[in-house]
């Protein structure tokens, strides 16, 4: 039976892009459907009634949601270039850091950049702390790694689950900082993390699955302006 893979996504969403990266690393052919956020499409509501969000993957008609769940599903379903290592302890560590990124880093960064002024200072401190912990975890590795040959420089350090999960930090944060006029992540503060960003963005499979910078910047600038106008 011919395989049918569809991805409902959003051009600017890091979560959606994570799934595209994972599919591309595995060489999976899929149909991409851009979701219209303003009028959440009827299809999206049908396939993700619980959260009503992208990304949603439809594999032979069966829907799955939540980007980190999808990264593991893609790993288990299609062979080659795994994003998780085979050892259970290393898998647990990768899952830990991916969760840390989603539940601690991203919310703190978002609040520090977009939150209420009263919350921003505290969020900034938290974001800095979280980034420091992430940097410590990198140590002297080129990538967070754990992957098995997909798109990295080769050798034992290939793109893994944590690298894909941290795409927001590698690309979106820089753009948002420019739009908002704030600076949390910079080369002086985080030399190790910046080396990782350079390494990650040098991988073609990552670079080719990011939204265009100028379009993303324009989007965030307009968001900032809209927020100011509503005050």
């Amino acid at each position, binding site marked *: 039976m011919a395989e049918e893979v569809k991805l409902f996504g959003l051009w600017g969403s890091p979560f959606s892009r994570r799934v595209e990266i994972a599919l591309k690393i595995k060489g999976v052919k899929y149909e991409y459907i851009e979701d219209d956020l303003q009028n959440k499409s009827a299809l999206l509501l049908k396939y993700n009634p619980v959260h009503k969000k992208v990304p949603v993957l439809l594999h032979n008609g069966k829907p799955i949601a*939540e980007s980190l769940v999808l990264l*593991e*599903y893609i790993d288990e*379903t299609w062979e080659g270039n795994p994003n998780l290592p085979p050892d259970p302890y290393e898998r*647990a560590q990768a899952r*830990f850091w991916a969760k840390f990124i989603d539940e601690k880093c991203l919310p703190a960064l978002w609040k520090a950049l977009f939150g209420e002024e009263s919350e921003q200072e505290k969020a900034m401190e938290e974001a800095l702390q979280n980034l420091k912990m992430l940097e410590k975890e990198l140590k002297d590795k080129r990538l967070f790694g754990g992957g098995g040959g997909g798109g990295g420089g080769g050798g034992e350090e290939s793109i893994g689950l944590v690298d894909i999960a941290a795409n927001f930090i590698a690309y979106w944060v820089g753009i948002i900082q420019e739009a908002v006029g704030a600076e949390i992540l910079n080369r002086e503060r985080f030399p190790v993390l910046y080396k990782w960003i350079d390494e990650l963005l040098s991988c073609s499979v990552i670079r080719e699955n990011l939204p265009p910078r100028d379009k993303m910047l324009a989007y965030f600038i307009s968001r900032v302006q809209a927020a100011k106008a509503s005050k």
Partner: protein
Amino acid sequence: MADEVVLLDFWPSPFGMRVRIALAEKGIKYEYKEEDLRNKSPLLLKMNPVHKQIPVLIHNGKPVNESLIAVQYIDEVWKDKSPILPSDPYQRALARFWADYIDKKIYVSGKKVWQTKGEEQEEAKKEFIGHLKMLEGELGDKAFFGGECFGFVDVALVPFYSWFYAYETCGSFSIEAECPKLMAWVKRCMQRDSVAKSLPDQHKVYDFVLQLKKKFGIE
């Protein structure tokens, strides 16, 4: 080499209970260490420097943090007995999705029920019951969330049963009345030794909640 397994835990924690259940399901011998969260041990701070929280599973000296990650770890290491996650990738994805839903919604909304009163509490109750009903809908007529067999989503959710009496009493409502199918599922789970022995008595949890309310000045 004999396996050395230690669990750093706190008796009323539903997250700790998940790991207890998984270890029991697999018949793993381990050392249980009760933590005083007001005075965290050097071992806890060393093994979970990022979050400084329980539960922490320590296997041959190496820590695994976050309850659902620890449960998956246990399933993958002791893979020859009593599987917790299903073998089919799509079923596994569904199991992870619902466990993630439980993680994001149940603890937080349940906490709001016992921490608030008046209008705020009514809102909290509606939200909490809404999440339970969503889960009840997903359960449907199956014996367990994964189907015939007790599994990952059951492990993720059933520990909160030990807090039901506390939620119900603080919020003046009955979970049985709102979600009878879910309560039938609870009873099925409680027939398993691994679950019955891992959950504390509901009244003990309620007394603990009353102490917390006093401590935080919540009437």
